[in-house]
């Protein structure tokens, strides 16, 4: 069965700091990879996804993620965070042979103004 690990449960940054959130998955086959964000009091929204092609994926609000197949990783990055990026971030994997997403445990990001 596939599983997803997010190493950091809580991250606190100051505005303008750079962000990198780790995500590793365990599945040997071909995968689709996703990052979702949940702002306080709001529903989960798709930030970006990787399906195929360029392993560096750009999403909304200046976020990007890099798929490194050899490391089974899909880390999320942003060069300069803003207070409005305070949210919980979830990495998710969909094995191509399967029908559903498996989510990581989430990372709560707090950005101090």
């Amino acid at each position: 069965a596939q599983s997803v690990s997010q190493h950091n449960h809580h991250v606190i940054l100051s505005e303008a700091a750079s962000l990198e959130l780790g995500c590793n998955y365990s599945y040997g086959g071909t995968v689709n990879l996703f990052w979702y964000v949940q702002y306080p009091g709001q529903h989960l929204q798709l930030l970006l996804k990787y399906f195929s092609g360029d392993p560096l994926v750009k999403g909304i609000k200046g976020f990007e993620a890099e798929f490194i197949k050899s490391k089974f990783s899909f880390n999320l990055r942003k060069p300069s965070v803003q207070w409005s990026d305070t949210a919980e971030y979830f990495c998710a994997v969909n094995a191509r042979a399967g029908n559903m997403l498996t989510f990581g445990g989430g990372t709560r990001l707090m950005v101090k103004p």
Partner: protein
Amino acid sequence: DVKVTQSSRYLVKRTGEKVFLECVQDMDHENMFWYRQDPGLGLRLIYFSYDVKMKEKGDIPEGYSVSREKKERFSLILESASTNQTSMYLCASRIRDRSYGYTFGSGTRLTVV
């Protein structure tokens, strides 16, 4: 925009009650999903449905059942609510193509007392 609507934002139920959580989507999506979200555990799949009257167990189906009589509606049923089912319940939908992400509802926070 696709809209996924969950009928209740907050629910409080007593132990042993039968509980119905309703989810409706308005964009003709084939796939629908029920997850529960708990701190530190991320989202865990309870059940999913890939078409009308079709259902598959997810990772944690015990104590739950589902119903999908119409394409737009996917109901989660707690046969006899217990305190360990206190959680945030999220409904999601997606077209059949697995490369697409889910669209989530706003969630139902269920408290079982």
